[in-house]
């Protein structure tokens, strides 16, 4: 059945068509029609992706070249789609989770007016299109197009409620932060083109090309690519946009800022795994940045009171884990975590959205509490998400996180210790969130309590599906120590990471079974303690007061935004003012106006030559003739 592979270009095309229909006809479509079109095209893509996945699972990979995109001299960039194990897996995640979130959105966004409703779905479809382009592209340039596309959609959707100035500012912040990263990505592409004259993955990662590149080249390119990943995947120091991105509608946060777009950086590094394996220095940087981000974001999440902010910092923290995995060479583990994270974080966000929906757009968890009996479905699905992210077996988070931590242990014990501390914090803040929201007594107003209601079916259905996935997805990657040959994902992705494996084959060491049991036991134990402590503490007396002391620093996110303002934004403004005052006004205006004035002045002076006296003109003519003759005389050969 070759046909499914041939149809690969339909996968991104369908969302594009949906975007065009919803975008162009947004004033004419009813909400039902927009919702059906928006979700339908994604469902179509999902079904195609599924067919494709079944093919790829059998070992078939495929490159579908549509046309030549850029051709300059030696450099030829095709517009081609690459279907292999990695991109097929991402296709499934994107279209699958994307479809569920589209369905969820039809209910969640129902209060919007018709045209805005259609606009929302148009953006969402455009996002899915860009994301599919990103993972399907068979070279860095197509990837970059998708990369920019998802950035744009992220901007559009964060600023979806564009009448609120804070939201548009958040959108701008996200866009600018992403641009910084994108610059790194672009430079890496230019570097590649300059050195090897190609950007196609298959060629770049081939042994011949890699020989052309010096270690410096590889380190430079990988570092620059990582800068791009930092921006897109919200790593230190470019992470601050992601918490602010929660200004967008909650399903958007679930889809873009948790499940798919932010994992683009991980996808990119996993795609270029050969380069990273060849650059140990960059791997170190990636691991350290990932780890520091994981811990840093986790500490902030401990003290946040906005339900979405907690989840946002949790996302940043989890992305940090993925980068830690990439940094220590556990590519499969990182991709595994991307997948499980997509499930449980989408679940958590959608659950949060359900809560927010029920609470009439109240996001402060201090005003919630005791929602367990009002929102039973949301409650149990959210609970599943919490234990999944906390890493309690046998839910999915345990397997993927444990794989990363095991790899971290074999790379550097300190990585592991810090990673486990981060995991404990994750468990703690997630259950603080859970306990404060769902347990205890309701702390909102009478009226709010009266209106509390379970969300409509269209919202509950995705929650249930995602809860099942969050609970079960872990079994795709059962570590060898628990069951021989049960790590299906590892086998499935093996061809993608084969080259890296070969490179590290010499010094890869397997952990002994006892060590691995010990590691699992410690991390699960610590997480369990954190959970019990948090549930006990916060279900009875949640911390409603404003935090003081160190807690205040955490609640204010380590004052990172303020620091950035002070050391980057302000000096930039000051510099701009200075430049405006001196360079712009004096220098540039001086040149521009000065040249004008010079012309005016010389013209005014030259005017006197035009005496109107015929004789003067003749005299000048004669002098001109003399000059000509002189020139002729002296240049005569």
């Amino acid at each position, binding site marked *: 059945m070759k046909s499914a592979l041939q149809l690969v270009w339909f996968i991104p095309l369908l969302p594009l068509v949906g975007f065009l229909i919803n975008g162009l006809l947004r004033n004419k479509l009813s909400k039902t029609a927009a919702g059906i079109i928006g979700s339908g095209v994604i469902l179509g893509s999902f079904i195609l992706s599924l067919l494709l996945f079944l093919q790829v699972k059998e070992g078939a990979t495929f490159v579908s070249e549509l046309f030549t995109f850029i051709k300059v001299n030696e450099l030829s960039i095709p517009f081609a789609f690459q279907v292999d194990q990695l991109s097929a897996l991402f296709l499934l995640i994107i279209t699958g989770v994307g479809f569920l979130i589209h369905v969820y959105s039809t209910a969640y966004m129902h209060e919007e007016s018709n045209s805005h409703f259609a606009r929302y779905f148009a953006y969402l479809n455009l996002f899915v299109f860009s994301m599919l382009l990103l993972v399907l592209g068979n070279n860095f340039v197509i990837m970059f197009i998708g990369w920019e596309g998802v950035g744009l959609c992220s901007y559009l959707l964060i600023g979806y409620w564009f009448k609120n100035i804070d939201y548009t500012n958040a959108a701008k912040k996200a866009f600018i932060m992403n641009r910084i990263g994108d610059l790194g990505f672009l430079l890496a592409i230019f570097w590649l083109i300059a050195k090897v004259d190609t950007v196609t993955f298959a060629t770049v990662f081939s042994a011949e090309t890699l020989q052309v590149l010096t270690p410096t080249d590889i380190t430079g390119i990988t570092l620059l690519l990582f800068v791009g990943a930092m921006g897109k995947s919200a790593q230190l120091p470019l992470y601050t946009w992601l918490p602010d991105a929660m200004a967008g509608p909650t399903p958007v946060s679930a889809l873009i800022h948790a499940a798919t777009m932010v994992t683009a950086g991980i996808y990119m590094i996993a795609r270029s795994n050969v380069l990273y394996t060849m650059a140990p220095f960059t791997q170190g940087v990636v691991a350290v940045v990932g780890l520091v981000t994981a811990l840093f974001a986790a500490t902030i999440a401990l003290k946040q009171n906005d339900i979405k902010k907690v989840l946002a910092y949790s996302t940043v923290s989890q992305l940090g884990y993925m980068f830690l995995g990439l940094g220590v060479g556990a590519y499969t583990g990182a991709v595994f975590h991307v997948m499980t994270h997509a499930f449980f974080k989408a679940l958590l966000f959608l659950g949060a959205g359900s809560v927010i929906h029920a609470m009439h757009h109240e996001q402060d968890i201090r005003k919630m509490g005791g929602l367990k009996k009002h929102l039973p479905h949301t409650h149990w699905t959210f609970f599943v998400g919490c234990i999944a992210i906390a890493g309690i077996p046998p839910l999915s988070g345990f397997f993927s996180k444990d794989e990363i931590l095991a790899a971290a242990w074999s790379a550097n014990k300190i990585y592991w210790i810090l990673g486990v501390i981060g995991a404990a914090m994750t468990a703690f803040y997630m259950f603080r969130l859970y306990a404060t929201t769902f347990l205890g007594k309701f702390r909102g107003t009478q009226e709010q309590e009266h209106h509390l209601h379970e969300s409509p079916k269209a919202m509950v259905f995705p929650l249930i599906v995602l809860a099942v996935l969050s609970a079960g997805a872990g079994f795709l990657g059962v570590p060898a120590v628990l069951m021989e040959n049960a790590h299906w994902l590892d086998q499935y992705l093996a061809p993608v990471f084969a080259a890296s494996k070969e490179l590290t084959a010499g010094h890869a060491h397997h952990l002994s079974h006892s060590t691995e049991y010990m590691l699992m036991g410690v991390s699960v134990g610590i997480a369990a303690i954190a959970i019990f402590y948090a549930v006990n503490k916060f279900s009875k007396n949640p911390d409603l007061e404003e935090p003081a002391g160190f807690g205040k620093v955490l609640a204010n996110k380590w004052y990172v935004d303020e620091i950035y303002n002070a050391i980057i934004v302000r000096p930039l403004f000051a510099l701009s003012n200075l430049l405006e005052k001196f360079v712009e006004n004096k220098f540039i205006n001086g040149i521009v106006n000065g040249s004008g004035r010079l012309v005016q002045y010389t013209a005014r002076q030259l005017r006197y030559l*035009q*005496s*109107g*006296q*015929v*004789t003067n003109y*003749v*005299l000048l003519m*004669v002098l001109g003739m003399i000059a000509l003759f002189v020139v002729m005389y002296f240049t005569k050969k």
Partner: protein
Amino acid sequence: MPIEQYIFLSLALFTIGIVGVLTRRNAIIIFMCIELMLNAVNLLLVAFSKMHHLKLMEVNPNAGTEGQLFVFFIMVVAAAEVSVGLAIIVLLYRNTRSVDVNFLNRLKH
């Protein structure tokens, strides 16, 4: 006669014409100086025509005819020019009661 002599003679007449144009203010005198310059050129053309003729006589018995015809046409144009030019000067005199070219700077304003 050596051609050099003719060149120098024409040159001298031409320069005198130029100096006249540059130094006099009477429009009619300037006009006459222009005629003088034209004549200097005519003389040189005829001299060149004869030089050419002497050189190519054996090949072409009519060599150099064009030069003299050219002079003829210059005279034709000069005659036409003088008639119009003098008419303009008369008109000028009628308007300004003067033929001083220094007053002819109306175009400046």
